[in-house]
């Protein structure tokens, strides 16, 4: 069995942000805090420009810097290998925010502790999918065994893109079916 993680089909994603809202709703997040987010990037120059979206959250990395750096053990690996966070142990030191190369952990200002995607472990334990997966209109998101996902969606999947930090840093449990333009090294983030 391989590591558990998300598969994202960039080619199908239309950037509707339903996954973002479903996550926010599921986790009852305050304004300004997102555990899953959509970003839009542009490559090339008009009239030969292209754009793509990325939906990202915690990558449940195999060598997570947030877990290694956490002084209390609040960030830890769950029994299924995903990166989980224990709010009772969290002291709000924010070292995980400095450590995560993907800028995933967020400060929950009302509680003064950190929060992040737990891959909806409660739903998964009940045999369901994470909220973002079920909410996606285009069925671009899936969660599961990465080896199985690779078999199902093809060997051309990647976890390295020019917009992402090097996967060598934390070995993210992430598979992306990229658009060709997302492989271009020059890009601009679009504010939408």
């Amino acid at each position: 069995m391989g590591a558990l993680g998300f598969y994202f089909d960039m080619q199908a994603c239309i950037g509707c942000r339903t996954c973002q809202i479903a996550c926010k709703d599921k986790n009852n997040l305050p304004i300004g805090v997102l555990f899953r987010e959509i970003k839009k990037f542009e490559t090339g120059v008009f009239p030969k420009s292209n754009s793509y979206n990325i939906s990202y959250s915690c990558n449940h990395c195999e060598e997570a810097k947030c877990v290694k750096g956490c002084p209390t053990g609040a960030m830890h690996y769950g029994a299924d290998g995903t990166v989980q966070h224990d709010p009772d142990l969290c002291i709000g030191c924010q070292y995980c925010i400095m450590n995560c190369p993907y800028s995933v952990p967020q400060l929950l200002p009302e509680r003064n502790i950190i929060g992040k995607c737990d891959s909806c472990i409660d739903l998964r334990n009940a045999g369901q999918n994470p909220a973002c997966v079920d909410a996606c209109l285009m069925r671009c998101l899936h969660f599961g065994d990465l080896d199985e996902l690779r078999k199902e969606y093809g060997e051309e999947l990647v976890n390295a893109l020019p917009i992402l930090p090097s996967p060598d840093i934390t070995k993210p449990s992430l598979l992306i079916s990229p658009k060709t333009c997302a492989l271009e090294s020059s890009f601009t983030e679009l504010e939408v």
Partner: protein
Amino acid sequence: MGNATLTIFSICIQASVGIVLFIAIAKLLNKEGIFKNATLVAAGLGIIGMLASVFHLGQPMKAFFALYQFSSSLLSREIWFTAIFVALVVLAALIFMLKPENKGIITGLIVVAALVGLIDIGLMGAIYSNASVPFWQTSATFVEFYMAAISMGAILFLFLSLQEANFMKKILAVTIAAAVAIQIAVVIPNLINLSISSSMAIQSSLVILSSMSLAGLFEWLFILAGAILAVWVAKDELSPSINNLVLSSAVLLLVGQTIGRYLFYAAMVVTGIGIS
């Protein structure tokens, strides 16, 4: 609030380590030396630093949880070493006040505290250079921390022990000048080197710093003026006016290093999606 508490924490602990280091050296050179004021101030700075680090936390009441992960977390190790350092210095200060005749124990505590403190500063540097903040991922982080500790520690030790440390005045002045020279020689070229980096996170850090360039100018002006003043006073014999100059030098170095540290934290830009 976050940058201010981290600045107070790191400056106070590093100044305290610096003072303790020079007390230890002075005690080894002059076994009769007492250095009571320096020991008490080092303990006070250590306590202020520890309190600042606790109030930086979102959950200060759970601060002791940070001791749980010594085996894996650099931050946990750094907290252990800071706590041990402060405990040793506070213990030495308490013995000074309650049983000052125990000179051997005080010297032992100070020497061990100096060694623990030096390791602690290394761990502080490692915490930041291992974070996903490209601006911090250089040897300049370590140099800045160690040289700040040495320059602040030396001038504070000289000011707080003027009579007893008079025999070390020239050594201390040269040490301060060398520490500041090394800091400038490493940090400034590092900034120039970073300015040609293709990393968006580094460029964002530099944009933040350029928006605070006046503070950066004052940082180096104060540090340089403090170091020059320290060298200037070292050539003269003790007098009330010289004491005031030593105090001025200490204030300049402390303020300069504090501004620099605030800028260090203010320039934090973590990598992320689209920011590598």
